[in-house]
């Protein structure tokens, strides 16, 4: 028999019993009893029908489930009967469970969902790393020749692929359209175990230079731009004015590197330069991913790579000295940068849930006192303690389930907000952010959390409630008893834990707020007011000669400078990381060379951006091609790498770019002519070591044009556009934006996670305030009698008020002490996320404590005032 057949089974039993009773009744009537007497006699002969029914149910073996169903029904009835309690408790739990489910959706989308490729556990990311002086651990891509050496380890890797992101424009029709595109090596796509929906992948020949004019389209581009043309193969797509033959279309579900919807894939053919011995040092920008051989673990692969790195260091000391290889699971590599923030978020919401549990447990405790009589009656008519606990626990789990369902609704809303925020600010680079939702993992997690929550907050109150002394409860006197003090201890313990947890969250939020305020006050090193910035990208096909590029920018600067309302104008191409050797300083060990971001600028960029000079001189027009190559360095570069000398007049030689396939600027000796203030913009957290070189000496094809104006900056954009078109009537201007706006966006990305933690901390504060309010109110109501006697004996209202407040204060203080200790021991985790202060910043801790104590005291004040306004006459008469 299955338990869902219970209903049928039950009807069957009823019929059976009825039939027996009827028979018996007939027999009794044959003995000449009146119909009524016969019925009673039959019942007597049969026995206690309810008991027999129950015993028969037991015999079926599903009594436990039946009891559970009955308990659940009863629980719902009980909850309906006290809507105030139910509403408070469910909302509290919904907030706690909802916040957890929402954050867990993030964890699920990012960490738990496996990569959408076959055998994802075989996929690894590869990188080169070294311990960089002044910066610590530095990881880069892998250079071309090194990749070939790695791929040769056939017993470790099935395939090793590499790629470069490319920003192609589709140059067909009237409007060039930019398209997300990637240049991929022969093995890059096969690693993901994907085949094109139509057509084919690249051949080995097509990844050689001169044969690489082929392209594979992403599914979406094929749909939107080519209307899903089934005869697309063999047609031509023009990318940056070069024709590419379309050889395939990817399937709709395919995403590159986990979640990237790419428009176009073209072959990545490394140049002879990049494949040469020199390329071993200069092409470390290749994003490298690989598929392990079956049965090879990441650890084994790492060991093999360690050996290989050591060998390569001796064979190619110039390029490889100091460099190691790092192998990590590809999935972990994708989410590495947000793993720890996720953990902190999860911890924060867990705290909120625990506080919510504490509150509901307290509510249940108070409720148990109210329902003491009911429990006692149940016990008196024979319910075992186990039975009572089971029933009370069922009630709390039902409560949790209602709260959990509501929580899921909140989580759904939360997920939508998270998805919007994460995709809106792409700077978060949260992988898989577009698919944050309530998947089965989240649902399972929420279910488990709900059940667990129900047991956690329900168990202690249930155990205590079931331990009733029948005599005392049934008499229902308000007198204190032994069990009362146990309950009080539990209640206080709960509030103390809540306060402690809330304080930990508050200090965390406080640290983040102080960090944010600190970052707001960071000296950006620039003056962003009245500056408009925009991008100019000269197409290679038109400006292939560097002379033309320089010529364009020179003309542009002249024209814009001449516009009315322009006070200063400059261009800059922001930094790529370079390594350099300060000349005259002792030669550092290979692998420990100083590093900096190399910015290519025009002399006017310093006044345009408002970057102040510290020493020496700015760049000048005279620093032209053919003149002595010069550079400015930032203050940080100066005292990091020339700690004991004045760098001005000295030389440095740039060793090689890491993030570039190109070779420009390598091994060039530059004279340092000036030191400028540090600037921050891309990274607010740390001052950067910067090099500035003139564009006349280092031709560039892409730059930001920065214009400082004396009028409203955006009003000048049309005339700048005219100036550009006057030089080249096809050249577009990209994304004109106020510098202040750009900076605001940078802060925006910081603000969101901080806001989240802040919301959680406020919730915690609110919930713990509600908690202490509830406990103090309860205490006061239980002690009305005692307080009334005190007042009757001459205590004045103020004394009563003070006594209650003192009690609340004592509880708060213990919670604060525990919370401070916990926050301090957790501060190490926060150390990476604070700026300008220590993670143990005393001011923050003091402020958080103050806020908490004030809120707690305010929560105590209301019940305390009620206590002090007790009318002794009335209170005592009510007894």
């Amino acid at each position, binding site marked *: 028999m299955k338990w869902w057949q219970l209903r049928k089974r039950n009807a069957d*039993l009823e019929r059976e019993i009825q039939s027996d009773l009827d028979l018996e009744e007939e027999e009794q009537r044959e003995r000449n009893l009146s119909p009524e007497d016969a019925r009673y006699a039959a019942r007597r002969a049969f*026995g206690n029908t309810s008991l027999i029914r129950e015993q028969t149910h037991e015999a*079926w073996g599903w009594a436990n489930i039946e009891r559970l169903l009955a308990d659940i029904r009863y629980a719902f009835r009980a909850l309906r009967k006290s809507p105030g309690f139910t509403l408070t408790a469910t909302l509290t739990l919904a907030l706690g469970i909802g916040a957890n489910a929402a954050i867990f959706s993030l964890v699920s989308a990012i960490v738990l969902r496996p990569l959408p490729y076959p055998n994802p556990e075989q996929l690894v990311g590869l990188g080169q790393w070294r311990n960089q002086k002044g910066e610590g651990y530095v990881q880069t891509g892998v250079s071309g020749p090194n990749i070939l050496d790695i791929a040769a380890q056939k017993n470790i890797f099935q395939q090793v692929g590499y790629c470069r992101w490319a920003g192609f424009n589709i140059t067909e029709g009237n409007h060039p359209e930019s398209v997300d595109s990637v240049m991929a090596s022969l093995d890059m796509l096969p690693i993901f175990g994907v085949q094109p929906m139509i057509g084919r992948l690249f051949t080995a020949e097509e990844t050689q230079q001169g044969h690489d004019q082929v392209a594979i389209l992403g599914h979406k581009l094929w749909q939107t731009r080519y209307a899903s043309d089934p005869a697309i193969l063999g047609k031509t797509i023009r990318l940056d004015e070069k024709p590419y033959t379309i050889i395939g279309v990817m399937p709709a579900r395919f995403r590159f590197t986990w979640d990237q919807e790419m428009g176009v894939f073209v072959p990545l053919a490394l140049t002879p330069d990049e494949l040469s011995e020199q390329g071993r040092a200069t092409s470390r920008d290749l994003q490298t991913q690989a598929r392990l051989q079956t049965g090879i673990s990441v650890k084994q692969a790492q060991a093999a790579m360690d050996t290989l790195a050591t060998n390569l260091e001796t064979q190619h000391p110039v390029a490889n000295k100091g460099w190691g290889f790092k192998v990590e699971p590809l999935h972990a590599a994708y989410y590495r940068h947000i793993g720890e923030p996720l953990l902190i978020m999860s911890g924060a919401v867990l705290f909120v849930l625990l506080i919510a549990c504490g509150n509901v447990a307290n509510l249940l405790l108070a409720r148990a006192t109210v329902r003491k009589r009911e429990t006692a009656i149940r016990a008196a008519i024979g319910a075992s303690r186990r039975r009572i606990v089971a029933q009370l626990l069922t009630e709390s789990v039902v409560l949790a389930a209602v709260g959990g369902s509501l929580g899921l609704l909140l989580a759904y809303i939360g997920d939508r907000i998270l998805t919007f925020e994460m995709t809106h600010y792409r700077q978060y680079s949260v992988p898989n952010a577009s698919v944050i939702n309530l998947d089965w993992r989240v649902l399972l997690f929420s279910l488990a959390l709900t059940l667990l929550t129900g047991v956690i907050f329900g168990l202690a109150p249930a155990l205590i409630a079931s331990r009733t002394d029948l005599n005392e409860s049934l008499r229902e006197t308000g007198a204190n008893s032994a069990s009362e003090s146990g309950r009080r201890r539990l209640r206080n313990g709960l509030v103390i834990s809540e306060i402690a947890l809330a304080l930990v969250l508050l200090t965390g939020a406080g640290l983040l707020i102080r960090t944010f305020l600190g970052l707001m006050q960071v000296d950006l090193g620039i003056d962003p007011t009245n500056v408009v910035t925009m991008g100019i990208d000269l197409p290679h096909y038109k400006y292939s000669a560097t002379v033309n590029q320089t010529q364009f920018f020179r003309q542009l600067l002249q024209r814009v400078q001449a516009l009315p309302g322009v006070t200063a104008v400059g261009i800059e191409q922001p930094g790529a990381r370079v390594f350099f050797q300060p000349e005259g300083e002792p030669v550092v060990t290979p692998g420990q060379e100083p590093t900096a971001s190399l910015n290519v600028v025009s002399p006017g960029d310093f006044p345009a951006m408002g970057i102040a000079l510290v020493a020496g001189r700015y760049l000048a027009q005279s620093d032209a091609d053919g003149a002595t190559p010069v550079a400015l360095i930032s203050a940080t570069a100066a005292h990091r790498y020339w700690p004991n000398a004045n760098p001005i007049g000295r030389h440095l030689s740039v060793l090689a770019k890491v993030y570039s396939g190109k070779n420009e600027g390598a091994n060039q000796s530059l004279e340092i002519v000036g030191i400028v203030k540090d600037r921050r913009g891309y990274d607010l957290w740390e001052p950067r070591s910067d090099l500035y070189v003139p564009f006349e000496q280092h031709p560039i094809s892409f730059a930001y044009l920065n214009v400082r104006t004396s009028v409203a900056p955006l009003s000048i954009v049309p005339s700048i556009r005219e100036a550009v078109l006057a030089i080249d009537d096809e050249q577009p201007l990209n994304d004109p934006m106020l510098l202040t706006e750009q900076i605001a966006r940078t802060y925006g990305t910081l603000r969101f996670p901080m806001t989240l933690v802040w919301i959680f901390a406020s919730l915690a504060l609110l919930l713990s305030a509600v908690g202490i309010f509830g406990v103090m109110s309860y205490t006061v109501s239980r002690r009305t009698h005692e307080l009334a006697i005190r007042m009757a004996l001459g205590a004045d209202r103020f004394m009563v008020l003070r006594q209650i407040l003192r009690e609340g204060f004592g509880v708060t203080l213990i919670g604060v002490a525990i919370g401070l200790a916990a926050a301090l021991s957790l501060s190490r985790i926060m150390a990476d996320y604070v700026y300008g202060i220590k993670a143990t910043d005393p001011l923050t801790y003091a402020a958080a404590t103050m806020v908490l104590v004030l809120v707690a005291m305010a929560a105590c004040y209301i019940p305390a005032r009620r206590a002090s306004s007790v009318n002794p006459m009335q209170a005592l008469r009510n007894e």
Partner: protein
Amino acid sequence: MAGKRQSSNLLQGTLDMLILRTLLYGPAHGHQIGKHIQRTTEDFLQMQHGSLYPALHRLEKRGWVTAKWETARDRNREFKYYRLTEKGRKQLLVEESQWKQMSEAVARVMWPAAEEN
């Protein structure tokens, strides 16, 4: 009350056996089984026949009896008839021999002289 409790406790252990034994005569419904046991023990057990049903359902669950609603031969009405299964027959033998051993053992303690005879 006390006496009754005693007899029903005794019954609890042996009720299964008594039911199985009764069913050996052929299929019967609950009321018949109850009446039979009452009559045979001359009402000594003072059994309320309602207490049969938990036992009957237990036996059914163990597969010792099967149950089916059937129309009674002598009247136009359906009763739930219990039937002994093969498994039930074996169980009856087991319980019977256990009961015998038990009562013999008890008898040896209670009336040692009689045993010597």
